[in-house]
């Protein structure tokens, strides 16, 4: 895979990715922090009380964004998994693996906040509602991905198996949702949960959108940071990685490393070894 002429493939080279993530994350952190503050302010001090649910509806400002992020991150993880399986770009696997814990946490938070919102609204922390149940299953899919990835001795092999699982899961998510939805309407008749009441006040919608953007930026920042570590841990012997770990990755070092980087194909191994002049790189880079 020496398609270095294709511009977007530039960041498939770990050193370039590392540099890009270094440049992006401060802005993402700042944006996330700022939007969290603004969103919380609008959510708590501008948005009016809901005339039916009282103040408990404010949980929506974190429940809905976390639920969206959980689903979005799963699909993104499956997409990166597919890129890894088809083009063998290792950075895609690093991204997918970096997404999984954050996706699982977002899904967990969606369940947690959903339970605490449900208690005052429908009088129960948990009901076997279609959305709750399929979100729970989504959490299991995240956990399965992480467990399978971690269980393999060989990082590359584990990554491929886990990527395949993520894709199968992504194909199944709509089927699971449909079947659970059907099961629920069959068993319950009328829905206990009505979230679509009267149309939302504009301040509420604003708070919701701002919080969603804040969660999105936070997830992007933390995923990029984790993917950076994945990249370093895969090539602990490489000069660029050691320089990056010391916080002193020069532009020249990065470009030199990227020019000969192991983007992913198996044949690139020798190239990578001559680059570092370290025969142990290959073994340790994989484990």
């Amino acid at each position, binding site marked *: 895979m020496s398609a270095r002429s294709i511009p977007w493939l530039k960041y498939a080279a770990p050193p370039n990715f590392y540099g890009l993530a270094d440049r992006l994350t401060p802005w993402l952190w700042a944006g996330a922090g700022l939007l969290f503050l603004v969103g919380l302010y609008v959510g708590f001090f501008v948005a009016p009380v809901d005339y039916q649910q009282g103040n408990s509806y404010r949980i929506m400002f974190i429940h809905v964004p976390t639920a969206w992020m959980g689903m979005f991150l799963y699909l993104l993880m499956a997409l990166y998994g597919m890129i890894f399986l088809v083009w063998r770009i290792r950075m895609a696997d690093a991204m997918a693996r970096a997404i999984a814990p954050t996706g699982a946490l977002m899904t967990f938070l969606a369940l947690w906040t959903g339970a605490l919102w449900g208690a005052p609204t429908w009088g129960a922390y948990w009901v076997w509602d279609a959305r709750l149940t399929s979100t729970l299953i989504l959490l*299991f899919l995240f956990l399965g991905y992480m467990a399978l990835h971690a269980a393999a001795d060989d990082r590359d*092999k584990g990554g491929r198996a886990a990527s395949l699982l993520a894709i199968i899961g992504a194909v199944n998510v709509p089927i699971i949702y449909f079947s659970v939805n059907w099961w629920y309407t*069959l068993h319950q008749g009328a829905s206990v949960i009505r979230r679509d009441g009267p149309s939302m006040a504009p301040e509420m919608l604003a708070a919701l959108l701002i919080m969603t953007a804040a969660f999105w930026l936070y997830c992007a920042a933390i995923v990029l940071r984790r993917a950076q570590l994945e990249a370093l841990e895969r090539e602990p012997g490489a000069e660029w990685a050691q320089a990056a770990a010391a916080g002193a990755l020069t532009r020249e070092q990065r470009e030199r490393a990227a020019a000969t980087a192991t983007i992913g194909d198996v044949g690139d191994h020798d190239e990578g070894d001559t680059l570092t002049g370290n025969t142990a790189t290959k073994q340790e880079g994989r484990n």
Partner: protein
Amino acid sequence: MGRSLWTLLQRDLALIVMRRQDVLTVVAFFVIVITLFPLAIGPEPERLRTIAPGAVWVAAALASLISLDRLFADDWRDGTLEQLALSPQPLALVALAKVAAHWCALSLPLVALSPALGYSLGLTGSELAVLALSLLIGTPVLSLLGAIGAALTLGVRAGGALMALLILPLYVPVLVLGAGAVTEAMYDSAFQAHLSLLGAGLAVALPLAPLAIAGALRIALD
């Protein structure tokens, strides 16, 4: 090509028949899990009847899961799988043949036994027929999905428990539709819709799952 696949199917069946113990173990597991339900819930017939479809289906799903655990493991360890991957037939067809043999030997007995167990939980007449029919359509899907998990966890530490975590979420739609069909039959409502959807699931899984299994096997063999 068809003939060599037939040979493979026969070989796998013969291997399973040689280890009758495995078949007996899975059948016994299925029966014991169902026996646990009355013991845990109590003997009242009405209550048992309401949980009967779910109980039989959950037991079938678990039995399918534990029986699939070693579907590829032996062939993988002794190198047969590598030979099969190098043979001229597509690996997906080889996988399909193996799953088919496994289903005939280990899931068909459960289907055959299910009316008796359903009866013991209070199902009657046509409900028993729907139960057996739903299992007949549904268990191949379970086998196909489970085989993906078996292939993905080849050569991985803690394979069994991991496989349950990977595969049980994917079993959800089959379980919902299968148990749902029987429940519908109990209330004299239309169960055909459930069975049709289950059949649609089988029609989708039959061509697609072997491709996924073959992909997973290639990863394990690499």
